């Protein structure tokens, strides 16, 4: 097994008296998708916000490639190779799909102040953007405005934007939310493929997808880590069954 690319230890986030994330520890490795599941309000999105830098932690450590990134702003973490998607689709609706991705790719451009050169003449940016759209199977919508894409396509676009920044670690917050069966299947295949050469932390409610994709599972309830282990261990865990799986859909 490879070394973990991300190590989270005793991470906590308090909102006033509420511990939305309460001393959570976990590790993510390249090639071994790590899924976080838990009921609504368990603190999954808060955990992702802590890892991406949208929120700063009340306590605990986030080690990425051996370096504590807990104090870094979101843009710094992104530049280190951490990319996230949002639970509620978060794109540039009035830009074309390609322009959405090109903007993402542009963030890696070393000389953004070079004002004389038109953005369109950067071949590397354009080709990265096209590759990202290709990867999520959206090439034929490249020149359509993002707001004209279907919900499922917008979710795909958001993943493409993540990919255009060429990340090492992907934090995906419910990428399947609101998708139809067919769209879901395609997205699951895409994530499986990405998982080969990316470290992925996946938050997802769809248990079929989770058990299909994850090598490691963490169950959160009320901000706390209830259990962590292989899918088999989690499925067999009594506590988990009582607290979560029993009341949600039964895993296959």
């Amino acid at each position: 097994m490879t070394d973990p690319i991300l190590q989270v230890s005793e991470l906590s986030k308090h909102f006033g008296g509420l511990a939305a994330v309460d001393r959570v520890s976990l590790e993510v490795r390249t090639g071994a998708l790590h899924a976080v599941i838990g009921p609504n309000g368990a603190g999954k999105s808060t955990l992702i916000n802590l890892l991406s830098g949208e929120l700063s932690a009340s306590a605990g450590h986030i080690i990425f490639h051996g370096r504590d990134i807990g104090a870094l702003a979101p843009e710094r973490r992104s530049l280190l190779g951490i990319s996230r998607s949002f639970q509620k689709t978060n794109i540039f609706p009035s830009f074309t799909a390609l322009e959405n991705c090109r903007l993402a790719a542009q963030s890696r451009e070393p000389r953004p102040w070079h004002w004389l050169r038109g953005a369109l003449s950067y071949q590397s940016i354009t080709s990265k953007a096209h590759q990202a759209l290709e990867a999520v199977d959206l090439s034929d919508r490249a020149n359509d405005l993002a707001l004209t894409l279907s919900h499922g396509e917008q979710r795909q676009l958001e993943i493409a934007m993540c990919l255009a920044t060429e990340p090492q670690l992907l934090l995906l917050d419910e990428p399947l939310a609101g998708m139809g069966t067919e769209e879901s299947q395609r997205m699951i295949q895409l994530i499986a493929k990405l998982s080969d050469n990316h470290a992925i932390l996946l938050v997802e409610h769809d248990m079929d997808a989770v058990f299909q994709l994850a090598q490691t599972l963490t169950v959160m309830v009320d901000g706390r880590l209830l259990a962590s282990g292989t899918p088999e261990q989690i499925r067999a865990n009594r506590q988990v069954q009582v607290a979560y799986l029993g009341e949600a859909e039964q895993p296959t």
Partner: protein
Amino acid sequence: MTHLSLPTWLLLGVALLLALLPLGATTFYLQLGAKIMIMAIFALSLDLLIGHSGLVSFGHAAYFGVAAYALALITPKYEAANFWLTLPAAVAAAALAALVIGFLVVRTAGIYFIMVTLAFAQMLYAIFHDTKLGGGSDGIYINVRPELTVAGFKVLNLESPAQFFYLALIALITVYWILNRLLHAPFGRALAGIRVNEQRMRSMGFPVFSYKLGAFTLAGGLAGLAGYLAACQFGFVNPEILAWHQSGTVLMMVILGGMGRLHGAVIGAAAYVLLQELFSSSALFGGYSKHWQLSMGTLIVIIVLAFPHGIGGLIDVAWRRRGYHGGEEDSPQSAQRSQRSDAEDSESDDLTAKDAKNPK
């Protein structure tokens, strides 16, 4: 020249006409023309913030005024100052003021940003109004205009209305060109992204604060160029040029012309200055011309209500009916609305059009 869109060509045509104007026009019209072009530079600099970066500054006159005062303070009482020294100094002073104030204000957003930019501008107003630094409320006269020499040879005589007109024209074309390039460069695309969805830009790795501060500083410097030229033209500065009225005036020019389109800022400045001339003309309006602000205000309200994209937007619709501009609006509904109205600026049209040709 592939970056130039049709309205830009139109403007170039207008510029050419203007270049020929001094051959026939009277001093009055030359001075009016120069005033319009100076205000157009000022409006362009504000549009970089409001229309292209989503930063609604309500204190933009501060930078205009700082540069104007810089010229007035540097200029000796009875001799001409050196153009090549005073211009960079005045622009740098304005940009520096914008950098310092921007450092403090671009962290805020929305209504707070509006209030804080206004507050800083009013502070500068108070400094010039209440202290002897810039002659207090009386201001300072610039008795002799700067001298524009190259290798000892006087290239332009700024005392001549025609030659000053040319200087303003060159400045306007230069500023327009710089902004046009900048907005097509990655920097401009990033600003467009920041205006639409700042959070997403950060999570994609853009140092949003630096981008905003860069835009704010540049806008301050360009406003300073306008202020410098205005001080040259009128030969006089007083605290009113950095008061909130002045910030409001340039804001109205931008809105009148249509935010987020460079030609809109120019058109808005021209429309505002010309309307002001019209409504304050006692030959046309008699005693009522004293109340020109009332007539102006009414007309501007009507224009803005009838044409949300301003006069510039109206011209865009008339000019062409193709494509869509990415990035003016931030919500799907409003973007759809503007897609129908087709009144979007040309910049991203070019992007979209070229994408179609771009092989993968």
